């Protein structure tokens, strides 16, 4: 069997595994605390399951509806479909549904819980600004998200954080009114504080994980097309455009940031801890490394 130029990035993998292990430990500790404080296990499981099922089945529909995306047939968008057809054949994956949204902001995202139930969406802005080769790089990045089941992984990674956040909110609503119960207030206060801490740490860890998944998608997307520089150029173009467009118009798209190829809201002075995407320089550095690897003679 001939060797492939696809070489594993052990550093990236091990850091990602560490983050996921930390998350699991955090959530297990939180669950244990809830149970020791007398919150009924059944209630926790029911809430968690409801959230999991809801996110699992509806995340793609919600995301696409929020973006006012419309599905396009091969007749309506032959070039886009042709590009995705070929990339899917090279990557050996089922073809996702293809959506276009009429938006000037240059961006693309992938959604769906599994490769079979997935969709790729591009804005009309990105199709206008990028060359065919650059757009292909972006699509390869999105298809890597689909192939790696990143939406499912991020959903699972974030949903316990959401539960923790929910309990915090309950604490705010019910905590005050029930304080007259003798001795009932203290455990509730503990849970309330703990769930806030869990939500905060969980949020940060989800963001770290998100950045690693982005780097992974960049890497495998670049190896798929064999043109890391085209993706790098697309990223530069998109980021440049992003910075020029006034932030206020983009704020509506803020909730969609986790799925975009480049975040829409420009974090002015916001530290990189909170970013869903790695900084542009880091992504370009990685693509340069891939390019060097491809150019290396046998």
């Amino acid at each position, binding site marked *: 069997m*001939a060797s492939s130029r696809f070489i594993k990035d052990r550093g990236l*993998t091990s850091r990602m595994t560490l983050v996921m292990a930390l998350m699991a430990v955090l959530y297990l500790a939180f669950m244990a605390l809830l149970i020791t404080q007398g919150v009924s296990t059944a209630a926790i499981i029911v809430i968690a399951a409801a959230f999991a099922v809801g996110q699992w089945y509806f995340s793609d529909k919600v995301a696409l509806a929020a973006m006012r995306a419309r599905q396009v047939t091969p007749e309506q968008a032959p070039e886009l479909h042709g590009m995705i057809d*070929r990339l899917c054949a090279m990557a050996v994956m*089922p073809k996702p549904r293809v959506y276009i949204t009429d938006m000037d902001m240059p961006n693309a995202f992938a959604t769906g819980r599994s490769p079979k139930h997935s969709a790729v969406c591009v804005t009309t802005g990105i199709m206008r600004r990028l060359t*065919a080769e650059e757009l292909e790089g972006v699509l390869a990045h999105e298809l890597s998200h689909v192939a790696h089941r990143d939406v499912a992984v991020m959903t699972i990674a974030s949903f316990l954080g959401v539960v923790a956040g929910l309990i915090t909110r309950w604490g705010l609503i019910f905590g005050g009114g029930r304080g007259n119960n003798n001795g009932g207030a203290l455990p509730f206060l503990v849970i309330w504080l703990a769930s806030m801490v869990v939500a905060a740490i969980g949020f940060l860890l989800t963001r770290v994980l998100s950045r690693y998944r982005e780097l992974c998608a960049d890497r495998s997307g670049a190896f798929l097309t*064999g043109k890391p520089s085209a993706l790098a150029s697309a990223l530069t173009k998109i980021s440049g455009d992003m910075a020029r467009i006034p932030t206020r118009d983009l704020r509506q798209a803020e909730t969609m940031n986790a799925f975009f190829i480049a975040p829409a809201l420009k974090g002015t002075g916001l530290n990189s801890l909170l970013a869903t995407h790695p900084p542009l320089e880091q992504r370009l550095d990685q693509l340069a490394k891939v*390019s060097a690897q491809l*150019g290396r003679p*046998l």
Partner: protein
Amino acid sequence: MGFMDAILGRRKQVKPDLDQLFAVPSAAVTLQVSGGFTPTGVGSVCYRANEGAAFATMQNDVQRLLDADGGPAVERVTDSFGFTWLVCRQEPEAVSELVTELHAVNRSLEEAGFGASLLCSLVIFEHADGRRLGLVYLYKQGTFYPFAPAAGGREQRDNALELQMRGLLGNDLTVEPDLSRWMAIWGAPGL
């Protein structure tokens, strides 16, 4: 795909089966006898050219190797999707020579570590009434499917003919069972 692969964001590579290509000559006989399609002697390999000197060098070496036999020169065509087609030409009846050339191109890319960039290989057949049929070999699947552009219309496929040919080809080679993988290859040279 295993659970750990999903967690770590990576996928197993499928093992391609290039030897499947050598089933084409017997399929060509079937197509001629039962379908009325004769080989045109044109075949091509479609791949995604990688950036960098390593790929360019390998590509030139392959082309030089194939041209060394003194036959018609190998032609390199880039289509509108940015994919490269390396077109080989032989005498119409020399199907096995053509297949050997296609095999050599596939093998060379694979051995240079660029197997992931291979899309498909194509052998073209022609009917007496002018209709054309492409026999497409999917590198990643190791399977074949027929691709027939409709006679008059632009970018329309003759699905009835394709399905009819699937029935004929089934005994000679592995036909791709998943119809959604029967990718349209508009702009393929010679079709």
